[in-house]
Structure formats: structure tokens, C-alpha cells
């Protein structure tokens, strides 16, 4: 298991480097001249040149990349062109709200998705299964932002129980959580259902029945336990998706988080902020994937003892 983990971690490091290179190259694809953006459109050309030199923009690309990585290791993501604030600081302020939102969205997915998955698998090929599976399919087809607005209309406006957007405590996360729960739970439902159906066809389930175990015992001890393994993998990847997709839900609910930060930065060509958020979220995705690998190794004996 040790070797397995080390292998996973080293793979993650390679991926992180790939991410840093692509993010870095993105800067050079942006047509805006950073020096010009900092000093303003009316500054003389000499000033722009001076700023360019100061920023090290004259140096060859590989050198700039090494500089950039060096700063990155010190937690320095640069300075926003627009707000002249350190990007690290801007991002740190937004991590909390985004993490809070993402957590609720994730919990909502699990709470809705997993029981429905078990339910549909247990009633496979019955009317009940078709109904729930149909709903799951519609759930997957729903755009989060539209569903969010629909829920806002009904439960924020027509029946004003919840606030009409904005970030904050529990009352603010219920609608976004529900929105994400409805659209995302379907993935868990479908995955768990197919995984359970597969496990139900395994020889060891027949062995359990041959031992005289009741259907309830067979389901919970033998089927669900094995069927949850792929769900664990997906759960981690899903947190990654959540982080990458958070911009849509934040824009819909006017939530002041990382997604909104990146969104405004993209509209303003504020390259250091774009790079910083993209980098941070990518790192988050890699970390969660890694975490899941570790959890997986801990719960699957076939990996644990290999």
C-alpha cells in the first residue's frame, strides 16, 4: 500500500507541474499587456518599458517560468492588475465562503443520491425503479444556473422563505445546496445503481444467500459494502467538479466566493487573479483525488494488502 500511495502522490506532483506550465502559458496567450494595464493607458512608453523590466517580462520564457515557480513556492501568486492587492490575500479571503458552499452542495448530493441509488437497485426493473431513474435522468439534464433561478423565483420571490441570493449562513446555502443536490445527486444514484446491480450478480452474493442470510443482510453487508467502493472514487472527483463548476452557482446566487473572483478577473483581464484561482482550484482537485485514493486504499483490502 505504501508503494501505491507514493506512486499516486508522485503522479499528482507531475500533474501539478503540468497545471503550472499550462497556467503560465495562458498568461502569454492573453493579448493584454500587463505593464500597460498596471500603469494605465495614458502613461508614456518609457514608463511601460520600465515596468516591463521590473516585472521581468523581458526575460526568456523558461526563466520567467522558473521565477514564477519560485514565487509560487513562497505562496506568492503576484499582484492583481486591477486592485493592486496581493492575489494570495484576495484568494484566501474567498476560500472560506466557497468551501462552505461546496460542502453543502456535496452533502446535498450524497443525501439525495445515495439512498435513491440503493432504492432503485433494490427495485430494479420495477415501476418504482423506472420512475426514480427517469427523475434522475431529468436531474442530470438540468442546467444548475437555470434550476437555481427557478428555485429562487419560487422560494425566494413567490413564497419568500429564503433570501434572494447573497452569501452567508445556513439560510443562504439551502437553495444553492438544493440546486446542486438535485442536479448532481443523479450521478450518485446512477452510479450506485449500476454498481449494485453488478455486485448483485457476483458469485459471493449467491454464497451469502446459500449461507442463509436474509435479503436485508445480503443487501447491506454484502452488496452495499462492495458497491460503495466506486462511489467513493466518484465522490472525490465530484468535489473537484464542484470546485470547477462553483462559478456558475456563485453567479446564480450572487455568492461572493472564488468563482465570482475568477469571473470578474476574466472579465477584467486581471491575469494574476485568473492564474491564481485556476491554479488553486486545480490543486484542490488534485488533492481531493489523492485523498480519495488514500481512502480507497484504506477501505479496499485488495489494495491495502498489495
Amino acid at each position, binding site marked *: 500500500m505504501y508503494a501505491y500511495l507514493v506512486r499516486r502522490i508522485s503522479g499528482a506532483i507531475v500533474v501539478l507541474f503540468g497545471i503550472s506550465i499550462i497556467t503560465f502559458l495562458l498568461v502569454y496567450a492573453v493579448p493584454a499587456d500587463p505593464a500597460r494595464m498596471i500603469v494605465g493607458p495614458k502613461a508614456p512608453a518609457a514608463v511601460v518599458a520600465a515596468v516591463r523590466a521590473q516585472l521581468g517580462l523581458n526575460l526568456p520564457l523558461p526563466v520567467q517560468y522558473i521565477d514564477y515557480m519560485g514565487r509560487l513556492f513562497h505562496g506568492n501568486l503576484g499582484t492583481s492588475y486591477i486592485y493592486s492587492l496581493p492575489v494570495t490575500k484576495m484568494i484566501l479571503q474567498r476560500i472560506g465562503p466557497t468551501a462552505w458552499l461546496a460542502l453543502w452542495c456535496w452533502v446535498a448530493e450524497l443525501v439525495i443520491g445515495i439512498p435513491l441509488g440503493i432504492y432503485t437497485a433494490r427495485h430494479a426493473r420495477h415501476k418504482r425503479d423506472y420512475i426514480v431513474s427517469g427523475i434522475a435522468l431529468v436531474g442530470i439534464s*438540468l442546467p444548475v444556473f437555470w434550476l437555481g433561478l427557478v428555485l429562487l423565483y419560487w422560494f425566494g420571490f413567490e413564497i419568500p422563505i429564503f433570501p434572494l441570493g447573497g452569501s452567508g449562513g445556513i439560510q443562504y446555502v439551502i437553495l444553492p445546496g438544493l440546486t446542486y443536490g438535485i442536479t448532481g445527486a443523479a450521478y450518485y444514484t446512477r452510479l450506485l445503481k449500476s454498481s449494485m446491480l453488478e455486485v448483485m450478480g457476483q458469485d459471493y452474493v449467491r454464497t451469502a444467500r446459500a449461507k442463509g442470510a436474509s435479503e436485508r443482510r445480503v443487501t447491506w453487508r454484502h452488496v452495499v459494502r462492495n458497491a460503495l467502493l466506486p462511489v467513493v472514487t466518484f465522490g472525490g472527483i465530484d468535489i473537484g467538479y464542484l470546485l470547477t463548476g462553483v462559478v*456558475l452557482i456563485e453567479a446564480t446566487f450572487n455568492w461572493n466566493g472564488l468563482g465570482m473572483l475568477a469571473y470578474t478577473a476574466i472579465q477584467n483581464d486581471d491575469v494574476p487573479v485568473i492564474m491564481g484561482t485556476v491554479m488553486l482550484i486545480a490543486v484542490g482537485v488534485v488533492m481531493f483525488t489523492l485523498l480519495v485514493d488514500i481512502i480507497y486504499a484504506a477501505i479496499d483490502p485488495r489494495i491495502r494488502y498489495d
Partner: protein
Amino acid sequence: MSLSESDIKQYQPFTPVPVNSKKRPFRSLREFPMLYVGGFLVLLLIVVALFAPLLAPHNPDAVFQNGLNANGTPIAPNGEFPFGTDSNGRDILSRVIYGSRVSLTVGVVSTVINLFIGVVVGLLSGYFGKWVDTVLMRAVDTILAFPFLLFAMALVAVLGPSLWNVLFAIGILGWGTMARVVRGQVLSLKEFDYVQAERALGASHARIMFRIILPNAIGPVIVLATLNVGMNMLTEAGLSFLGIGIQPPQASWGNMIQQGMNTYAFAPWTLWFPGLALVVAVLGFNMMGDGLRDLLDPHNATR
């Protein structure tokens, strides 16, 4: 959101068994309702997109004198404007009809790009293994770790928001899952004895990859591609919703929803119709994909 691991999970490689369609041609209709309903919705979408000028009652971009109430608010659905008007006084039905063109184009063309890159990467990676596999799979890991939507946003911002740039950004970034699925298929197929037999006969790598392995791997790839179209339509709508995709006045369901965001309180129809159109279109592709999966599932074929 791009395609998920759950989709990968569901395409564990299998040997396709041709459905015995000769005997009972209409059996499928009852056994695969998903395929038929989904196929119908997709066909409907294609027809609407193709014949938009004939079907739309008005010019989608025209601002109507009588398109707004006296207080400047949109008009509710009525005989002249069946889906009502938007905050600019344009006919929502016509805009929804024309919006189908954007969704369908982006969904299908970006999927074709995904498919092309994904199949090539997956095939090479799975077939040659060793360092080719290591390098390509790290690339796939990297592309999958990126915040897809943010990155697409940044890319579109760089290239300038237009239909073709949106489609290109989605196409160039969304092939990771496809590559993984193809690779998984190839890995299992290449151990099959019929592939080994081909090697024993002295066939070239290209012949084995394209004539033997690819046709056998294609089933799950088609299913995934179908679902992918729906996903890419959602991504396009998301980008347009954020104002980074298709730019007004060109009608896209995403930017119509964005506009509806400001008016839904007093004119909810501005929100309902573009959203419903998007849901129905995506649902069509998802149902078709699910139906195809059932059709290609060997358990169903032999039942």
C-alpha cells in the same frame, strides 16, 4: 460539468453482441423506449434548428414597437408572442427557435473534436502502453484536474467570445473522459485472442488498431459521445449565461436565461422558456445515450 467518472464506470469494456434484429424488428420499440423517445427529441431539435426561418413567427433579433408594456416591462405570452417578449421587446419563441442552432452546433461540433482527440489519445495510449501510456495518461490527468469551466472561460476570453471560439474551447478541453474510456476498452480488447491471432498472422499495428480494435471499442464510445453532446450544450449555455459565450443580440438559450435573471420577478416567462428548451434538448441526448447503452448491453441483446 464534463462527463463524469460514473459514465466511465458504466462503460466497462464488453464484447458487443449484435442484436438479433432480423427476427423481430419491432421488439426494440418496446424494449428500448428511452432510445426512441430520446431519438425523437433529438430529431425534433435537428428539425427545429434546420427549419428555424420557417418555424419562427418573427425575426428573432427584431425589437418590436408593441413588444413592451407601457411601463417598459416584457409582454406576457399572448396570441402574437406565444412565449411572450423579453426586456428588449423581442419575441421569445423566435429566439428560442433560433437558439437551438447555437446549442446544436456547439454540442455536436465540440463533441466531434472531443471524440477525435479522445479516440486518438486513448487508442495510442492503450495500444502501445509503456512510456506512451504514461505520458498521455498524465496529460489526461492534467486536463481532467483543470477547472474545466474556468479554463474554458479564460480561453474564450483570450480568443474573444464567438460561437466558434466557444465550440473550440469546449472541444479542445473536454476530451479527457473520452480518452480514458477508449484506453480502457483498448486495454481489455488487446488481450483478446482474436487480436493476438491478428498479430500471429503478421498484421501491422495500424491494421490491428483501426480494423480490429477500434470497431470493437466503438459501441461505448458512441454512447459516451451522445451523452457528451448534452454535456457540451450545458457548458455552452453556462458560458453564455456568464456572458462569456455567445454574445447578444445573437440568441442563445444561455444568454436568454441570463437576461431572464433580471426580469423573472415580474416576467417569469423570460426565464421559463429558454430553460425548458435547454432541458428538453439535453434530456433528448441523455435519453438517447442511455437507450443506446441498453441496446449495446450484451445482457439485453441475449435476453
